[in-house]
């Protein structure tokens, strides 16, 4: 476990040290806040618009963190950073799990910063209580990073550095479109996760009703199980790979 956390620590420290991350978070919060000014253009729909924008941008931020990892693993393998670490008492599977855990922690921190920033802006703009559905929707966005990180690791272990982010982005896009892919059995509920499970924008924006905590718990559990499966497959591939 210590080995996994040591690798995870290296990953989150690297991403959270980048000044561009905080610049992007600031930009996201400015975009969320600017939705308040659409009251005239959107016929007083600026409140749902702000909630919607916050969830969309939070999802995009999480995807960006995941995409950053698709660069990191192949880059570490190419530059020799991974080979230095893998000559220490560290299994290849532990290295991959460490990368996934590091990405999840990074994504959670960034996503939580955006969510908290949004709640502060929302409270300041509308002086209303934060609806539970809004909070739950943001929690689900955060939880979506679990299966997404596993997808990123899976493609990173055998694909070239330049192709991995594109393939990962396509896979994530497909995973959010599972409703449209119900006919393609191999993809739906198969190798691609159903990221629609984590998309409850409609509840938060219009419904205002809360969803059950058991649903959220099951969605997280499903994400963990899917990640374990995909990391196991990735590990089998990675175990036989030559590292430069």
């Amino acid at each position: 476990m210590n080995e996994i956390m040591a690798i995870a620590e290296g990953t989150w420290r690297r991403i959270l040290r980048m000044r561009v991350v905080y610049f992007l978070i600031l930009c996201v919060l400015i975009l969320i806040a600017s939705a308040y000014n659409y009251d005239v253009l959107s016929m007083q729909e600026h409140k749902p618009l702000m909630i919607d924008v916050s969830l969309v941008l939070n999802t995009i931020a999480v995807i960006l963190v995941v995409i950053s990892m698709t660069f990191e693993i192949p880059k570490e393998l190419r530059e020799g950073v991974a080979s230095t670490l893998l000559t220490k008492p560290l299994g290849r599977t532990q290295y991959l799990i460490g990368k996934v855990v590091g990405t999840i922690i990074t994504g959670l921190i960034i996503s939580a910063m955006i969510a908290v920033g949004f709640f502060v802006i929302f409270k300041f703009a509308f002086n209303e209580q934060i609806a539970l559905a809004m909070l739950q929707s943001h929690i689900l966005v955060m939880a979506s990073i679990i299966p997404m990180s596993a997808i990123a690791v899976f493609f990173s272990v055998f694909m070239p550095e330049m192709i991995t982010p594109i393939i990962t982005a396509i896979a994530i896009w497909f995973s959010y479109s599972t409703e449209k892919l119900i006919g393609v059995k191999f993809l739906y509920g198969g190798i691609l996760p159903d990221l629609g499970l984590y998309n409850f924008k409609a509840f938060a924006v219009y419904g205002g009703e809360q969803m059950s905590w058991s649903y959220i718990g099951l969605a997280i559990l499903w994400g963990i199980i899917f990640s374990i499966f995909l990391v196991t497959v990735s590990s089998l591939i990675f175990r036989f790979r030559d590292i430069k």
Partner: protein
Amino acid sequence: MQDDYVIKTEDLSKTYGWFIWKKKIPSLDKLNIAIPRGSIFGFLGPNGAGKTTTIRLLMDLIKPSEGCATVLGMPPDDVKTKHKIGFLPDAPAFSPYLSAYEFLNICAKLLKIPSSERKKRINEVLETVKMSEHVKSKLGGFSRGMIQRIGIAQAILNKPELLILDEPLVGLDPHGRLELMEIVRDQKKRGTNVFFCSHILADVERMCDRIGILYKGKMLCIGTLSELLSEKGTRLSIKPGHDNMAKELMVEALSCNKLPDGSWELVFPENNAILEKIRNTKEALAGAITVSASKESLEDFFFRKIEIAKKEKSS
């Protein structure tokens, strides 16, 4: 039970590529080595000889196509054995966003150094490689030589039983090279076995007690320096002012050098008849000529072996 050999390979081979993309010529071809404990082993060879491939196989970074290896008596993929190994890759690279301390702290955690000892041990190794003042600096801002020093620091962090160094002298200034040689000697005094791969033959000759020369994936020779660099002839030193004498003798000499101070050095094959004549000349008796046993340098030995291998290959 302790194995007598720190590294042992049996028909270890590696051919890069896969399926139809598999290369025709193996990078390493049936390598058989057995390195006993308590030695500094110098692994030599020209570029592309297969030195780094061998090291990567021993560190389980790549998988062999054929054959097997043991490191400290265990297969290279044994995670527990890695606690006893220190490794410096040929081009060390570390995450540029981490400071020297943070990087070594991660390594210390992977090596399971207890948290109470970690800080002390990290400061010790940073002191050893003369990098204490850069403890908080980011690795991204380090020069090649500084990165090399951090690489050495992470390799000796766990007080290893076996230290594998791939081109450790690259990127170091002359002062740094001396310091590194001192570190390696110090490690040997502590009982560490060293497997050392370098192009700088003079340094290898000074540091190693055993060497192996690899050429195009095959081992040309292996043994102790004293065995391999045996006496190969007679050296004649002629003092300045005796140029005519030197010019007369150089016809039969194996090699002839005029040194900057005007003196001459000639090497003759052993038992050459001319040497007997010289011993009785008035110049020899006057001390202008000294006769001594000539020992081949590692550099001469290396090039001779490579030349023979090249000729054998082409024929």
